[in-house]
């Protein structure tokens, strides 16, 4: 058997690959930002004294964490269409990813909240901080610092999982690869290159999160130690 590789034929399509990679990063950024906010709200909701709010948050987390992203994407895609709403594939993909990562973030943030000693919250109450101040300075930020490594790996996994949105023809990196391989008949070379591109993207994201961590957690920057 004679196997011949032709990477240049695929590599010359680099502008398309780059466009796909940028879109993948955009999807990851949107999902990280809004999924992170949704997760923080979800984690606060799970601590709510109102039972029904806490239950709704729990049901959301369990429903998302126990079903595949692919099926969730189809549900959002066809669900929106069936109630007559038309969005671009990119918006649907972003929405599905936000809903998905929001549930995982809720669970991670909850672990962070649980790790905040009750005494610290009581001390903050004793210092007459408002509820909002307590949530922000004493619960949310320290909790985020504690679970920052888990959060960031979750977000990197999310970026990789965004490849699944190619199935509803969002034009991200994997969709670009599918298109190029059907055009060049070089499936092997295309997918090898795309796989490596994803490795590079995840390294970029990790480096970015490391830098961000240094920026938003001064303790880490000054002492070099996590909480």
């Amino acid at each position, binding site marked *: 058997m004679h196997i011949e590789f032709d990477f240049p034929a695929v590599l010359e399509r680099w502008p398309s690959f780059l466009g796909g990679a940028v879109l993948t990063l955009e999807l990851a950024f949107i999902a990280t930002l809004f999924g992170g906010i949704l997760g923080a709200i979800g984690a606060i909701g799970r601590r709510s004294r109102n039972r029904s709010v806490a239950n709704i948050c729990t049901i959301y987390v369990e429903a998302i964490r*126990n079903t595949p992203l692919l099926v969730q994407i189809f*549900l959002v895609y066809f669900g929106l269409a069936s109630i007559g709403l038309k969005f671009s594939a990119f918006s649907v993909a972003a929405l599905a990813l936000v809903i998905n990562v929001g549930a995982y973030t809720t669970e991670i943030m909850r672990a962070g909240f649980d790790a905040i000693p009750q005494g610290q919250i009581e001390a903050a109450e004793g210092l007459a901080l408002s509820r909002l101040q307590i949530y922000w300075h004493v619960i949310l930020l320290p909790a985020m610092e504690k679970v920052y490594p888990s959060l960031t790996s979750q977000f990197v996994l999310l970026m990789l999982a965004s490849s699944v949105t190619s199935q509803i023809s969002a034009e991200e990196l*994997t969709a670009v690869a599918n298109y190029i391989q059907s055009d060049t008949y070089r*499936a092997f070379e295309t997918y090898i290159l795309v796989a490596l591109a994803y*490795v590079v993207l995840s390294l970029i994201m990790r480096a970015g999160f490391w830098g961000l961590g240094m920026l938003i957690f001064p303790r880490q920057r000054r002492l070099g130690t996590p909480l």
Partner: protein
Amino acid sequence: MGGHLNGNHLLFLGQGMLWTFGLSVIALGGGGIAGFIVALCRVSPSRWLRIASGAYVQLIQGMPLLVIMFLAYFGLAAIGVQVSPLAAVGASLTVYVSAYLGEIWRGCIRSVPRPQWEAAEGLALSRAQRMRMVILPQAVRIATPPTVGFMVQIIKNTSLASVVGFVELTRAGQIINNSLFEPFLIYSIIALVYFVLCFPISRLSHRLERRGGAARETLTPA
């Protein structure tokens, strides 16, 4: 197009569910064996084995499973290696799972308290004996909750097999949808089936985690 969901459709979904289950077993079996080897390499005394296995884990964990599947199915076919969807999916899942389980298990082996290694060494056990008789039995207890938790990921990830045309639960749903065109209903049913498969395992993992915490405390030497 048209028609209603009937018994035959449900039967077809049932068959798909069995394949989802079968794929999960293949992934857990294959990925478990390969992952065990990866974990052992990651804690090996040989520097090169550690570096090579570490690179393998970093590489695989940096790729989406979907791309690995495309590579195994369309990529290999393009260079003249014809593989069946089952073989391609099974191999992709094995490679993918091995990188994650290998890393999880490495952590578990490493978290066996240091004095246990030293005591075993002091008893003049060989490295293989130390692993087999002292470290691994304790590591298995630590590893059980995260491994059970990862099984949920495996079951969910088998849904990606649908994209290379393998008829498991998700693909079965797509095929039925192509004839009935009731996507919201059908994907809701599919999601529910996945939930029924995964939720008990999630709960089990959660329970084991809480119980395991207590067990581990009793393991810590005085």
